[in-house]
C-alpha cells in the first residue's frame, strides 16, 4: 500500500531525502567535532565547574 501511496502523492523524494540529510548531517557533525581544538573543548567541558559554590564545597561533611 505504501508504494501506491507514495506514487499517488508524488512524495518519492521523501523516502530518499531523509537518508541524504542524515548521512550529510552526521558526517558534518563528526568532522566538526573531531576537528575542533582541544583547548576549546577543554574550556567548554569546564564551564559548569567555573563558578565556585558559595556554600561549603561539600554539603555532605556533617551528619546528624
Amino acid at each position, binding site marked *: *500500500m*505504501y508504494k*501506491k*501511496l*507514495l506514487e*499517488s*502523492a508524488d*512524495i518519492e523524494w*521523501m523516502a530518499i*531525502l*531523509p537518508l541524504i*540529510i*542524515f548521512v550529510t*548531517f*552526521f558526517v558534518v*557533525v*563528526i568532522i*566538526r*567535532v*573531531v*576537528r*575542533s581544538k582541544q583547548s*576549546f*573543548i*577543554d*574550556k*567548554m*567541558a*569546564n*564551564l*559548569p*565547574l567555573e*563558578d565556585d*559554590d*558559595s*556554600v*561549603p564545597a561539600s*554539603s*555532605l*561533611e*556533617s*551528619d*546528624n
Partner: protein
Amino acid sequence: MSQKEQFYYDNEIVRKFALASIVFGFIGMLVGLWIALELIFPSLNLNLPFTTFGRIRPLHTNAVIFAFVGNAIFAGVYYSIQRLLKTRLFSDVLSNIHFWGWQLIILAAAITLPLGITSSYEYAELEWPIDIAIAVIWVIFGINMIGTMIKRREAHLYVAIWFYIATWVTVTLLHVVNNLEVPYSWIKSYPLFAGVQAALVQWWYGHNAVAFFLTTPYLGLMYYFLPKAANRPVYSYRLSIIHFWSLIFLYIWAGPHHLLYSTLPDWAQSLGTVFSLMLIAPSWGGMLNGLLTLRGAWDRVANDPILKFMVVAVTAYGMSTFEGPMLSIKSINAISHFTDWTIAHVHIGTLGWNGFLTFGVFYWMLPRIFGTKLHSVKLANTHFWIGTLGILFYSIPLYWAAWTQNLMWEQFTPDGRLTHSEFIQTVTQILPMYRMRAIGATLYFTGLLIFMYNIFVTMKNGKIVKNELAEAAPRDNKKSYTGETAHRLLERKPIRFTVWALVAVAIGGMIEIIPMLFVDNEVPKNLSVEPYTPLELTGRDIFIREGCVGCHSQMIRPFRSEVERYDPDNKEYSKSWEYIYDRPFLWGSKRTGPDLHREGLKTTGTESWHFGHMYDPRSMIGQSIMPAYPWLYTKTIDESTLKHKINVLRMLGTPYPEGYEDIASEDLHAQAKQVVAALKSQLDEKDFPAEVDINNLENLEIIALIAYLKDLGTDIIPKDKK
C-alpha cells in the same frame, strides 16, 4: 581583561520550583500508589466517580510528568543557566508568571481530570482551555530562557543549554500539533484528526513527550549537575555534541513504534522501528558519557548518596533506552504491547531516571541555595537503598506479569481452542504480581517521605540566599571570531541555534506525518461504516469521561489468538476504515480488561449483561477487578451540547445531514427507548437496583453507554447482513 561586573543569581525562583516539584511529587506518587491498590482492591474507588481508576490514572501520569518532573526541570534549568551563562535570569516578572501560571495549570488538571474532563489522549488529556494556557506559559518560559541567553556574559553555550533549547522548541511543536481540536463547549472539544491519522499524531506526540519532556531536559541536567556533584568535567565533550545532535534528530521519528500491528500503514510502522533501533547509539553514548565522567571517582560513589542517585539514574536511562528499541521490534512488541511490560518499562524510566536524578540534583542543589549542609547523609543513603529496592519490587513483578499474561492470551489447546478463553483467568493469574508491585510502590513512596523530611529539615536549618552575589567579566561582543568553526558560531547564537534545532526535529515530524494526510484517500472506504447515532455518541463521550480506554483497548491485532478471543464468530481483526469517524480514537495502550472493539457482536454483551456488569462487575464476573459505576444509574444524559457536537463533527467530516442537529435529540430518545425495551424484556422489575428510577430509564447515562458498547465493531458486518 575587562573589569568584572557584579550581579545576583535568582535562587528564590529555583526554591519555588523545587518545592512545587516535591509537593506535587508527593501527591502524584500517592495517587499512583492508590491506583496500584485499586487494581487489587477494586472497591477502593469508594464507588465515587472522582476516585475511580479511569479518571485518576491520568491524574497520576499528569502529576508526575508535568508537575513533579516539570517543576524539577524548571528548577534545574533556572539554577544551571544562570551559572552557565553568568547572568541573572532575563526577567523576574516572567519567572514568576511562569511559576504561578504552571501551578495554576496543574491545579486545573487536578480539578478537571477527576471530573472526567479529558481528551483521553495519553499525556495530552487536558482540554482545550488548559491547552491554550500551557502554550502561553510555555512561551513565557521560552522567552525567559532565550532572553537569559541573549544577555549572557559567557560567550559560548554549554551543551546542557542545547538540550534545554531542543526541549523548548520540540515541546512547543508537539503540543500545538497534537492539540488541534475544535471546541463544542467551553471546556470540551473534538480533535481535528480522526482514527488512524489521530493515532499517528498522538503517538508522534506521546513518544516525544517522553523524549523531550522526560529525557532531553534531564540530559541537560545530567550534563550540568553530574560534573558538579563529581567535581570533574564531563568525560567527553566531543561525545556530548554528537549525543545531542543525533538524539534530537532521531527521536522525533520513533513514535509509530507505539502502533505496531495496528492499522497504521506498514511503512510508518517500519519507520518507527528503524529509527527506534538507531536510537540506541546516541542514548548509550549519553549514558556512557555520564558514567565515565565518574572515572577515577568511583570510590566517592560509595560514600556519596548524591552520586549514588545519579549513577542509578543514568544506569536506568541506559536500561530504558536499550529496552525501548527492543520493544520496537515487532516480534517483541507483540508480547509487550497491551501488557504490564509497558508499565514496567516506563517506571524504570520515571522512577529510576527522572526520580533518582531529581533526588540527586535536589540533594546537591537545595542545601547550597539555603547556605547550609544536607541535614542527614545517613537518611539520604537510606532513601537511596529503599528507593532502589522500590524500583526493583515495582518493575520485576510487572515484567513477570506481562510475560505470564501474554503467554496465557496466546495459548491454544491441541484442538485449537483458547486455553484461557475467559480474559479474567489471565488477570487473576497475575494478581500476586500486582500485590508485589504495590509493595514496590510503597517502598519507593517511603523513600520519598524520607527525602521530604531530610530536605525540609535542611531548609529549616539554613536560610534561603534569595539573591546570590556573583561576578563575571562582561561578554565582549566586538571580539573577532574569524576563523571559528561553523558549529562554534552556531552555539554562540542562541536564536539561530533554536531555529536549527527546530529544523532538525521538524524534518522528522514532517516526513512522518505529511504522507499520513494523504492516507485519508487511501483508507479503503467501506459503505457499512456508519457515523455514531446521537445516543451512541453520548455513550462514547461517557466512555471517554470515565477513562475506560485506560484499561480497554479497541484494536484487535492480526493475530490468531486475538481474533479468536475478541471476534470468535467473524474472525476479523481491526481495519483502518472502521475508525474514520472516531474522534478521538480510542485504541488504548493497555489491556487490564479485554479489548472491546467487537463488543457489539458478542453474544454475552446483551443489554442486561452490561446493565448488571457496570453496576457491579463482580456480580457478572466473580473475580473481576473492574470498579463499579453506580453513578451511571442515577445521572441523566446531558443533551445540552448535543447540537454543538453534531455541528462540530459534521464540520470535521462526519456525514450527518444538514439540519440533523435539530432532530438529533428525537433520534436519541427513540434509540434509548429501544435499549430500554430490550433491557426490560431481559430483566424482571425486581432485578433493577433500588435507586434506579425504572420510569426514567431512557434518560439514564448507562443506557447511552450500553448503546455505544452494542455498536462497537458492528461496522465489520456488511450492511445487508446486519
